[in-house]
């Protein structure tokens, strides 16, 4: 459990980092919090020839609440985003999700953007970005592009961030008025990746009738699985919506698989149970908003 040899780069500026990444191309990997990458290196499951450590790029640590949402810099740790009151006020789903990400010590080092780039289908934050319709800003030498969530997650542990690119920030749209969110999951142990998890968002109109009901499922497919169940809920007040039917519709969208921790049938069942619970919670939040 020692990593194979690699060249270590510790650029002092963003420009320098992009230069190094441009120079190393396919052979380079960004090192952010290291909570996913270092185990992969130690088990020799990854063997990049170059590691580009971005931890000295203090400018990337910013967490900015803008009118439209929250922009999280590449060096912002989970813990910092989780604890931020302005962030929780602008988009409560981030804190709801981050509390379920791993353990406090891992959240102290792991980064939100790193988690998005890592694109683990069992991770919470990709589901959050997908549900909210956020985006990731990718920089390369000589250019920057914003990739919407729908195009960012391309497969299990695969994202749109290409060789030579650095994800400099992610943008999470703010919670619209009269809306609520919730995150529900079942994990084997506290802090483990979820067997199944649901991020939900419910929005109401001025008469407090449902105008939006959407979920994103964790561990339900190769990428976060989105389901819009607004239609199933009907244009009704939350108290009379058929949440069970909505949950069944979510279940139908999911493609969970068997693994050593749970059968696909159990995961599908959980997705239904959790979707109903999360949608009800989100609707309650929306009513309280």
């Amino acid at each position, binding site marked *: 459990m020692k990593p194979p040899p690699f060249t270590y780069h510790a650029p002092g500026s963003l420009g320098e980092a992009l230069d190094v990444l441009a120079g190393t191309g396919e052979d380079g990997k960004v090192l952010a919090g290291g909570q996913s990458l270092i185990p992969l290196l130690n088990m020799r499951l990854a063997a990049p020839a170059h590691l580009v450590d971005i931890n000295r790029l203090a400018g990337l640590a910013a967490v900015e609440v803008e009118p439209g949402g929250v922009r999280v810099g590449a060096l912002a740790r989970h813990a910092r985003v989780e604890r931020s009151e302005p962030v929780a006020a602008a988009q409560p789903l981030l804190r709801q999700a981050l509390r379920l990400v791993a353990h406090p010590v891992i959240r102290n080092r792991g980064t939100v953007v790193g988690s998005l780039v890592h694109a683990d289908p069992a991770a919470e934050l990709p589901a959050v970005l997908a549900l909210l319709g956020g985006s990731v800003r990718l920089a390369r030498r000589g250019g920057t592009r914003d990739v919407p969530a729908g195009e960012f997650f391309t497969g299990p542990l695969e994202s749109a961030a290409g060789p030579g690119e650095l994800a400099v920030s992610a943008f999470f749209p703010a919670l619209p008025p009269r809306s609520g969110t919730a995150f529900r999951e079942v994990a*084997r142990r506290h*802090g483990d990746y979820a067997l199944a998890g649901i991020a939900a968002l419910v929005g109401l109109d001025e008469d407090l009738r449902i105008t939006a009901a959407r979920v994103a499922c964790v561990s339900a497919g190769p990428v976060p699985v989105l389901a819009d169940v607004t239609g199933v809920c009907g244009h009704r007040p939350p108290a009379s919506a058929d949440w069970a039917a909505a949950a069944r519709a979510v279940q139908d969208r999911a493609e969970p698989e068997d693994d*050593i*921790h*749970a059968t696909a049938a*159990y995961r599908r*069942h*959980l997705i239904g149970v959790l979707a109903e619970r999360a949608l009800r919670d989100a609707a309650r939040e929306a009513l309280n908003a």
Partner: protein
Amino acid sequence: MTTKLFGEPVQRREDPRLLTGRGRYLDDLGPDALAAAFVRSPHAHALIRDIDVSAALDVDGLVAIYTWEDLPDRLAEPLPLLIPHPALTHGRTAYPLARERVRHVGEPVVMVVARDRYLAEDACALIRVDYELLKPVVGVEEAAQSAQLVHDDVPGNVGAHLVQEVASADGRGAREVIESAPHTLAFRLDVERSASMPLEGRGVHARWDADDSSLRVYSSTQTSTSVRMAVAAKLGLPLPKVEVVAPDVGGGFGVKIMHPWPEEVLVPWAAMLLGREVKWTEDRREHFVSSAHERAQVQFVRVGFDGGGRVLGLEVTILHDHGAYTPYGIIVPIITSTQLPGPYRIGSYRVEFSSIYTNTVQVTPYRGAGRPQAVFCMERTMDRIAAHLGLDRTAVRAANFIQPDEFPYDQGLIFQDGRPLIYDSGDYPESLRMLKELIGWDAFPEAKAEAAREGRRIGIGIGCYVEGTGVGPYEGGHVQITSDGRVHVSTGLTSQGQGHETSFAQIAAAELGVPLERVSVVTGDTRRFGYAVGTFASRAAVMSGNAIALACRKVREKALRIAADALEADPRDLEITDGVVHVAGSPHASVPLATVAVLSNPLRYAFDEEAVRATQFAGGSSFDRPPVEEGQEPGLEGRDYYSPIRSTFASGMHAAIVETDPLTAEIRILRYAVVHDCGNLINPMIVEGQIHGGVAQGVGGALYERMVYDSHGQLLNASFMDFLMPYATEVPRVETAHLQTPSPLNPLGIKGAGEAGVIPVSAVIASAIEDAEGIPIDRMPISPSDLFGLRRAAS
């Protein structure tokens, strides 16, 4: 301060050191040593056709590469079979490095030594081993039926087969009794693989002193004395030229009583060859695939009983999966089969086990060592009887208990120490009474009904066990009081964090009448004590504790005799308080133990002021007698051994209340209660700590841990990401009550406590889930996904 220390909840003296990073574990030693790493088999079953090391030779910092062909003499032979048994007709052990064939993923094939571990692993990655794949044998039932053999000369993959039978009072065998019993049940139980998983893996550091022709080996082991003998034998060294030291050991739980591991002989050998310090520190992946596992068994049960729930006949047939090799013999299935009757008087009992080879990691004892499986079997049986008869589960147990006036109670079986299984003492009805009170057993149905009204499912479960502890053959203790008044205690048995520095010191301080602060304890260092067996089977307190007490008594007697001379008193009138020998009732006629130590060693040369008193012109000795009297030795020290006639039997009962989520099938332990009887308590706080840790491991075995092998013999979850050990957040608060029925077998009246916590947990949790769900639970561990599957199947 007084010297009433035995039985006091003294804070662990080792903790400040261990908890603030000042422990000295194996990997803290030899920072400049060369590092060893191993190429291990990626296949479960294969022939080695060729090993090509050429690409690795270019690695900068490479020092040496060894394969089996390089091993000399006795090192080229298979490793020892530590515990032979007549029933183990086909015992097989591995070579230190694989010879021609590998039999499990993780078996060491090539040893690489390099400047550091990184480079050693780089070299390992470049070594090409050409394998010819053989069909792997995986799963104990598959192995028992398979034509494919793990060892070509072991027919049917059966390493051992043993039957023990205890006839009924009227001489009938269990099968016959069951046939004619008023009620009978037959069922099957499964327990999966888990492992000790100490925080610190194995590790060896060796340094060879060529000028002195001596070898010092540090090993993260549970038996330094026996590693020493094995290393001396394998390397052909004279025993006095080999020292083995167990430094601080970060947990063992059984896996480190196995020895000598391949690395334990290979690393010292390389150190000798290379004339350099060599170290190997096991990493977690290695620990998963190349140390040892335990637990896996399939049990077939038939039981006959009467209308009161009394067991008239019990027949259990066990398939025990011992993995690819049997270096530790068949201790685990022997313990399962003999501890199965637990606290019960079984009318007649027949137990049969087959111990089976598979292409998986070998099985050696893990805390509990076969007992969790035994208790799972017996307690599931008790619950089934209760369910069948519609009786309360505790009533069925009570109907079968051995009564307090029946001790010593002979179960009629031969135990793991080769001696009759005779319970020395206990009070099972009282334990049960205490447990029912602690958990609120009788009031539970109301709570359950109340919960049901709220749409919640809760259940209560119980499990009882008897644990043979303190097995022989012996341990020793050495106690020396030096002229500064300090007391130096040593025992050859090792420590892995159990608190021996505290509890052994308490024993010595209490026996000698000295303050605890003056006592220091050394364990597991062959430089200090050469004769020992090791730490396992909840034996340290019983064995070394009693040996140390006996050694202290020798020293005390000597101290009193010398002091009596000095004080011109009768030794029978003397007492020791706070390290001072004085005439009972007259504190002024006194002499400190420090002075007694000076007087005990007649000197020619003085080295300090105290010593002057023992020199030849000081006038202390009589001209009629030699300075050291016949039959006496200089110095205030004593050595003694404790060798019990047989094991002592601790016992306990646990109960738990669990909640199962009606929708998600999540399982939560709401309460966990333990009544525990390990005889006299040396330190109740340490005993409770042992119980808490044991219960935590038990919760792992019940709800989380299993080794998932696929049909190719690949271990699919060889990391802490996927092998789920409970976190602190998964372990319930443990409520404990102690009962103390002293053991009549040893001077201190103590029984072992190290393994107790883990033993009944699977049985208890199964019992509680079954109560909550109304579905029979017959395999452990159980996950929410499993429970979901059971619900589906039942509906």
